[in-house]
């Protein structure tokens, strides 16, 4: 009887210890480091950070990226899941290719799109050979903020829609087909069924997808790094910059705390706003 009571904790213990040492301890250290100077508590690291012009651009770029990318991915993924549900020909082949970016790293995705958006890349080659442009567009030129954003958005959409797609497909498959058929019998058209049957039942999956994608998009950095270097700064990229190139771990910690604060805020926000109407329904 005693072994029965104690065994779950014996099984859980290693994971708890590992997570506390490798997550709990560094988390506390990170907070301390950001506020620690040569003589105790200081805000100097934060002052230094906010005097750096890059940080505000990075913050703005990160938020803009999330606001643009996440809704596109959500709509695209739902559309793709519905296409799969319509059972097209070669569904297996399509499914494989649509999931492919799931295993492709941010860095590789950035490099893939670099081959397209580069000054001498495939897109400019196409434009020139079609006679649409004389010597191509400087898509990633540092003064072209708009096209840089566009390139990063496309690369992010390409890379990370697969994750939302897989989550939504799993969610769609849990909806009994009867519901849809019943709505069809009662004369609901495609949009009505989508609005009143499929989407409400997808609620929990969409919530998971939203939280996961927003938090991961906050951590995006290598895509922009590969495409533009520091011309299109993102928050996590700034951490990397401060730690590796500017050799200042304290300021790097401060930036990462901003990322942490936004992550937690978004998670709480989604859990409150998306779930409650779901339960009140």
């Amino acid at each position, binding site marked *: 009887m005693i072994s029965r009571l104690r*065994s*779950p904790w014996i*099984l859980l213990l290693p*994971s*708890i210890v590992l*997570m506390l040492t*490798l*997550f709990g301890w*560094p*988390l506390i*250290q990170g907070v301390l*480091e950001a506020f620690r100077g040569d003589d105790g508590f200081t805000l100097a690291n934060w002052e230094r950070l906010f005097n750096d012009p890059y940080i505000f651009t990075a913050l703005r770029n990160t938020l803009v990226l999330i606001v643009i990318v996440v809704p596109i991915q959500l709509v695209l993924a739902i559309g793709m899941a519905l296409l799969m549900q*319509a059972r*097209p020909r070669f569904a*297996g082949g*399509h*499914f*494989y*290719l*649509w999931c*492919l*970016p799931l*295993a492709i*790293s941010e*860095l*590789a995705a950035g*490099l*893939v*799109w*670099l081959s*397209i958006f*580069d000054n*001498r*890349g*495939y897109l400019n*080659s*196409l434009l*020139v050979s079609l006679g649409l442009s004389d010597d*191509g567009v400087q898509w990633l030129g540092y003064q072209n903020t708009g096209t840089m954003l566009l390139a990063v958005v496309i690369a992010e959409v*390409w890379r990370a829609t*697969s994750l939302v797609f*897989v989550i939504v497909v799993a969610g769609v*498959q*849990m909806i009994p087909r009867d519901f849809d058929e019943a709505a069809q019998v009662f004369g609901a058209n495609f949009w009505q069924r989508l609005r009143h049957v499929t989407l409400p039942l997808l609620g929990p999956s969409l919530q998971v997808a939203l939280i996961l994608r927003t*938090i991961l998009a906050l*951590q995006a950095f*290598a895509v922009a*790094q*590969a495409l533009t*270097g520091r011309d299109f700064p993102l928050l996590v990229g700034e951490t*990397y910059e401060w*730690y*590796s190139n500017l050799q200042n*771990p304290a300021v790097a*910690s401060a930036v990462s*705390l901003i*990322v*942490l604060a936004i*992550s937690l805020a978004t*998670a709480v926000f989604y859990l409150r706003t998306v779930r409650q109407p779901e339960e009140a329904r």
Partner: protein
Amino acid sequence: MNQAEAPPQTVLPPVDRAPLRRRRWRAIGVQMACIAVTLFMALPIVLIGLAAVSSRDALNEFPKSLIPNEFSTETLVAFFRATGTVPALGNSVLVGIYTVFLSLVVGAPAGYALARHAFRGKDTYQVFILFVRALPIVVLSVPLATMFLRIDVYDTVFAVTLVHTTLALPTTVLITASIFVSVPADLEEAARVFGCTRWQAARKIVVPLALPGLAASSIFTFVLSWNEILGATIVTLGHRTLPAQVLTALGEASTAYRFAGGFALIIPALVFIFVMRRYLVNMWGTTLR
């Protein structure tokens, strides 16, 4: 007159072909949309593949033709000959394997406990796991680097393994829990009735039945480790993993190096997803019907 003579069957109303036609158009629409999405997903990969097998001259040419006029392995060879690439590749593979091993050893028992036991604190534990899952790795990597420096494991494969294991652990626990839930508890109890100890029952009954799921989860962990960049870059200096190596070389790298590097990072992804495609949806909680 004619109508009156005709047998009743022939006066059926004309067949309304409109719904059929509409159906066919919709099917065509679905096909086209699928092809469009597939092109968007596959074309970039094809393009970087072409870039990676183009010769240096073909890469410098502008406007580039879609199919390079001369194929050559020169770009890829140059990438793999560049300083640090091969050791970095080795590090990546080692870190991946160690991470899979460690996260299974630590995570699978926890998943088993979640699947089989109802106990006080279960919810707290699950919330704790989800919280860890939501923490950005960047918050942890800087202090971890300091800690590793102090205990003298900085810049080792072991250090990267620890970072990646922590990153993968929450997912491993949750996935293995759902795998163990799907192994019937009856079988385990039957084994114990026939005289197996708890440990034997787990080893002889549960592990074999859970093995395919565990394998899928392992591949998932490996991919995660293979793709992780920031933690690996921050806690190492000389012993980089492949993505970290490519990232730090980006500054001074030639275009050819970048494209070859990008392609080299992608090749395993093609294989992983091919092996995993049946498990992808399963792992998010359901089965492909």
